[in-house]
């Protein structure tokens, strides 16, 4: 059934008309042969068809009056960013983002230490100690940390010169990340699951063939910094450590 998952994924694209005619034909051929997939795809389409867009009522004119009044009030306290400063920021965007990431890492570390001082045995992920997930998660985050810090702090030019990790290693990390993401979902650990999802996006971007393209590198940089990934990861890592010690003693 594992192999059939690919066909179900294609079936989603087929539902939205995003499949090339050739792939659509291959999918239809498979569905005509595989009863399990056919039934699953039919159910999938039926369920998607049930998720109709919510009926959106046009707001009353009074709503827009209130909206504009509220917006005006908010804008009174907001000054538009002066253009020269914007230009300065844009020309030093890489440095500004790197500095911001560094500050966030430090603040994240301090916050993590304050909230969970060393020695406090507390599950960062809301799971029962001893099931191995926290240990695996912590080890995975430790492995990824240098790479993501590089993504966050290196300038696009530095990054383009040498990708800090080779493709086979990236694929390995991606696979491990997916397995952990699945385990986090099974454990209902939303915080870990969302963090791993963000990491997957970065790894997918890094493993794209055109990673040396400056635009792509800029996007990776933005993804890491915009989501404060390193800071959030640091909090989870710090909070996982005491538990790792506890599990080791067990």
């Amino acid at each position, binding site marked *: *059934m594992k192999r*059939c*998952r690919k066909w*179900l*994924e294609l079936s*989603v*694209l087929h539902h*939205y008309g*995003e499949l090339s005619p050739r792939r659509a034909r291959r999918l239809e051929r498979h569905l005509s042969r595989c009863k399990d997939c056919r*039934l*699953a795809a039919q*159910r*999938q389409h039926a*369920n*998607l068809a*049930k*998720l*109709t*867009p*919510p009926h*959106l009522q046009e*707001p009353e004119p009074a709503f*827009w009056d209130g*909206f*504009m009044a*509220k*917006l*005006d009030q*908010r*804008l009174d306290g*907001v*000054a*538009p*960013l*002066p*253009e020269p400063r*914007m230009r300065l920021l*844009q020309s030093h965007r890489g440095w500004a983002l790197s500095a911001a990431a560094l500050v966030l890492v430090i603040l994240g570390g301090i916050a993590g230490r304050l*909230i969970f001082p060393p020695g406090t045995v*507390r*599950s*960062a992920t*809301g799971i029962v100690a001893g099931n191995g997930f926290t240990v695996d998660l912590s080890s995975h985050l430790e492995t990824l940390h240098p790479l993501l810090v590089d993504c966050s702090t290196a300038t696009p030019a530095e990054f383009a010169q040498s990708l800090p990790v080779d493709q086979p290693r990236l694929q390995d990390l991606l696979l491990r990340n997916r397995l952990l993401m699945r385990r986090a979902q099974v454990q*209902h650990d*939303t*915080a870990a*699951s*969302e963090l791993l*999802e963000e990491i*997957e*996006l970065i790894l*997918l*971007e890094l493993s*794209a063939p055109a990673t040396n393209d400056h635009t792509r590198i800029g*996007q990776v940089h*933005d*993804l890491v910094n*915009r*989501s404060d990934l390193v800071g*959030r990861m640091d909090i989870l890592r710090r909070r996982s450590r005491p538990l790792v010690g506890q599990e080791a003693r067990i």
Partner: protein
Amino acid sequence: MNVAASTEAEAVLIRRAAEGDRAAFSSLVETHRRRVYFLARDLCGNCEDAEDLAQEVFVKLYRSLHSFRGAARLSTWLHRITLNTYIDQRRSRAWKEKLQTVDLEEHTPASTHTNPGVASAPETFTLNQQVLGHVDTALDVLSPRERAAFVLRHFRDTPISEIASSMQIRQGTVKSLLFRGVRKLQGSLAHLDPHAKREGAL
């Protein structure tokens, strides 16, 4: 007014608004508020959050109009701001909630970790009533990015290439988000439909 003239008029309004002309900015808001609000409504699933999100989008627009160089249309730019603001807001809210509730979760039995609105639905409701009546609740199982990709593709019929451009990610990544979103929704619906359990596990 033809398209070129309307674009020209908008460019003038943008320039004046960027120079601090609030009346010009209000005109821009009046032109785009409906589109932004309805996208926000689809993303947030309720009117209150949608209004807050739309307000935040226009405040961001006001603050950053100087950086608008006209490479894309203003509506495209607003679309992108709305998506990014929604993802950032929901992520930061979820993260804060997670930090605050982690203690409670440690002591909560695993059986209570079910999808909101799904397990608590009375058995007398039919599947269709539950799904149709709780579309927004069903979408709550999705992460912000998955929800954005799903809403744009499923509700708004936006092609994957455009979604990728709006969310500034690759098309392959959008497809992954879409697969994962649909799978989660299948899993969520499996609680309601016993026949669908197997599919949800796929």
